[in-house]
């Protein structure tokens, strides 16, 4: 038998929880959150370091602390039901969701609207094709983080990290504090892909060398990792012969990118963006499929969880409004495209009422740059421009576009960077 809900939320991490709370505040009477892990909170539960929540809760929290806040907001609310240890197997265009857990077995629920908040997963060795043997001791940084922080085991003792994404940087510090030796962090790009504060606090403070424009050309060890061969790379990121050197280690941690987890979305045939690898959404985080919303890292990988919550609150609010059939009529649709140095922009679509509405755009730059001007254009007209002292691919750019500016938009809007002349 299918159980009916106003809003069904797939994923109980920060996005799902924030969306649930927001839908509740908007008046949704029956909200269901489905979470595959044994507890709510998602990946935050393994991020035991601090640095979360400064924007959203105006307070510095640890990952579990942030998750706890989100959980506190939804608990004891009769309108919100949560089911953990629950895997969603299928989501259908009619908004039915097939899920399974050990207690209930297989069950089907249906929402008036569905919010996709499945987060993201880590890129693996196979995706970047690192040559060598396939021994034990190669982990994604997040998997190692869970093991050391939640399960109480070490992934290894002598560690090399490939990639300088934030999880990798955090793990460099974490493993050092556990008594392990972190030999080096290698980054194939000529710049780091992590937050500056993490480079300083996690590598510099512990004298861990960061090799930019370097990669691993071979993993050694038949059974357990015994070392890696490292080489410098050229502009095309191909290893330069003759620059190889070896580092002895028993563990390789990979922090080589995150990919929105859209396996369920793919079955829905909603539009996915080739660069964000998440659903194309409008400013309310409505996807291309009616009744389906998406928020958080499943849409695009965020730099801070605070922005995940912000985005999920938007999705929760509008999913609840749609469930109550209270959405304002759309009079025009505007496509937002990223150009000139901006790699991605979310939302990719604005569905606007006659009077327009305030919209926040989140962007990522393709490469680091200094003293640039961000321009939002509609045809030849510059709707908005902003001087930015520094842009980095690792940090999202957020720009608020006031309602009156959106009211004047027509056709296609572009966002791009202009390098300051002279």
């Amino acid at each position, binding site marked *: 038998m299918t159980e009916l809900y106003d809003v069904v939320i797939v994923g109980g991490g920060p996005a799902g929880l924030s969306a649930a709370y927001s839908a509740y505040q908007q008046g949704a009477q029956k909200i269901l959150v489905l979470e595959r892990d044994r507890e709510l909170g998602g990946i935050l539960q393994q991020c035991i370091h601090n640095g979360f929540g400064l924007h959203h809760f105006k307070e510095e929290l640890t990952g579990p602390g942030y998750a706890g806040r989100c959980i506190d907001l939804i608990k004891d609310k009769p309108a919100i039901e949560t089911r953990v240890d629950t895997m969603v197997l299928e989501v259908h265009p009619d908004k039915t969701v097939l899920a399974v857990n050990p*207690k209930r*077995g*297989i069950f089907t629920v249906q929402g008036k609207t569905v919010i996709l908040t499945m987060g993201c997963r880590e890129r693996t060795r196979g995706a970047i*094709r690192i040559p060598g043997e396939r021994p034990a001791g190669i982990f994604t940084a997040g*998997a190692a983080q869970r093991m050391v922080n939640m399960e109480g*085991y*070490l*992934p290894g003792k002598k560690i090399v990290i490939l990639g300088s994404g934030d999880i990798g940087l955090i793990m460099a510090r974490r493993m050092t504090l556990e008594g392990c030796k972190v030999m080096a962090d290698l980054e194939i790009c000529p710049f780091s892909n992590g937050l500056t504060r993490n480079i300083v606090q996690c590598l510099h403070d512990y004298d861990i060398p960061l090799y930019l424009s370097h990669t691993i050309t071979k993993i050694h060890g*038949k*059974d357990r990792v015994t070392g890696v061969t490292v080489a410098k790379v050229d502009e095309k990121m191909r290893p330069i012969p003759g620059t190889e050197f070896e580092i002895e280690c028993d563990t390789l941690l990979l922090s080589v990118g995150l990919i929105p987890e859209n396996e369920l979305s793919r079955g829905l045939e909603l539009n996915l963006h080739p660069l964000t690898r998440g659903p194309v959404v409008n400013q309310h985080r409505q996807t291309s499929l009616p009744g389906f919303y998406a928020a958080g890292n499943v849409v695009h990988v965020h730099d801070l969880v605070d922005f995940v919550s912000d985005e999920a609150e938007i999705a929760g609010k509008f999913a609840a409004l749609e469930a109550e059939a209270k959405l304002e009529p759309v009079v025009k649709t505007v496509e937002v495209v990223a150009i000139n140095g901006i790699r991605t922009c979310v939302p990719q679509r604005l569905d606007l009422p006659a009077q327009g509405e305030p919209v926040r755009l989140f962007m990522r730059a393709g490469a680091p740059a200094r003293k640039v001007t961000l321009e939002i254009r509609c045809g030849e007209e510059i709707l908005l421009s902003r001087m930015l002292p520094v842009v980095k691919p690792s940090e999202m750019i957020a720009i608020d576009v006031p309602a009156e500016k959106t009211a004047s938009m027509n056709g296609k809007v572009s966002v791009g960077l202009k390098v300051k002349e002279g």
Partner: protein
Amino acid sequence: MKYFKECDVVVIGGGITGTAILRELSKYDLHAILVEKEPDVAIGTTKANSAICHAGFDAPVGSFKAKTNVRGNQLYHQLKDELNLDIKWCGSLVVATNAEEKATLSELLERGKANGVPGLKIISREEVLDKEPNLTTAVAALWAPTAGVLWPFGCAIAFAQCALQNGAEVLRNCGVTGFLKEEGVLTGVETTQGTIKARYVINAAGVMADQIARMAGDDSFTIQPRKGEYILFDKTAASSLVYGIAFPCPTKKSKGILVCTTTHGNTFIGPNANDQEDREDTSVTLEGMDQIISSAKKLVPKLPLGDSITLFAGLRAVSSTGDFVLGASPKVKGLFNAAGIQSPGLSAAPAVAEVIVAALGQVLPLKLKSNFKAALPAVKAFSKMSGAEKADAIRQNNLYGRVICRCETVTEGEIVAAIKAPCGACTVDGVKRRTRAGMGRCQGGFCGPRVTQILARELGLSVPEVLKERQGSEMFYPKFTAKEGK
């Protein structure tokens, strides 16, 4: 002398050949023991190959390779039903991309006919594109309808399980260190677990088979390890590659770099063929990958390289005789060789087993058991169950309601069952080969630690004792104690 075990026949090596032989032996009234030096069966050549059940047109007419390939291919049909093997009978194409290669197709066709391969025909470019729209460079192809793709480790494990239910034994972590002989006749095998008294020994030791033979006193052949590297793609990439099997025109050294989609829907490209001295080095190389990528592009110009999920390499055991080495050793009484089993070894395995057991029958009177149990209990993967079957499975055991591997939808119930089964999984990779947990796009990133913990719980080990694959491949370490700290 006190022996660790006593039996009629010892089979050395737990790959596809050894397990197939053990199963064949278990049909008869005799006691057979298989010894495998690693913690699990099927982790040598059997775990890293093209997984193809060849039609049988490649090998020279009259060779063991040709005969056992064609016969093995036929035998797999019945075995599929009896042992619930994953086999996709999809047929194969040898693709010609120019007139010269087209001539080769006719040679293959003639050889195939002589080998007794049914249904072979040369088809036009249009017919190729009808089957495989991404083979855009094809001018013609040899179509072999009897070829298929199988799940190699699944087959080997099923062979072992079938043998076990018929009274045979499988000893893992049991490496051969020497042989017992009396007056030049083999009388037993010395192993890392103790001495096994045996009347006959069958050498199915893969790339180590010549060393085992030498240890027993037979230097009649040598084995050249030949590495083949592969790139495996996400299931989402199959639609831009192939649905079945596409070979290029063969060269003298190998059948060439092919494109093939496995029984579970992942496409791979490979293998290359590079001889090496090392019998253990299965590392993938940068040069090797470039080699297979550029070759595969000749068949499928647009490779979705961003969708690769893993790389692997295997070693083929190439014999100095140019053919499989099958039968009684010419040098040592009591020793039988099933060696040099390179391609089409997987396809040939059930037939190789028949040849070996027939040879044994020349010296050991064989009597069929009246109660041979050919069928294994049917096990269905959770992901392949209907809704009602899933609900039922969870009602009987609620661990089937907990999904551990999210890429392949493998439940805790299936993982526990794989551990508890005969010849059960005892390593993380062993669980992977039996259940597919860890074979998906995240390659165990998410489920690997959970599988490790389930193995520890079920086997009564601590988490740091759990192995990925071989001895020395521990997954995790205990945390440092306060004393160890600096």
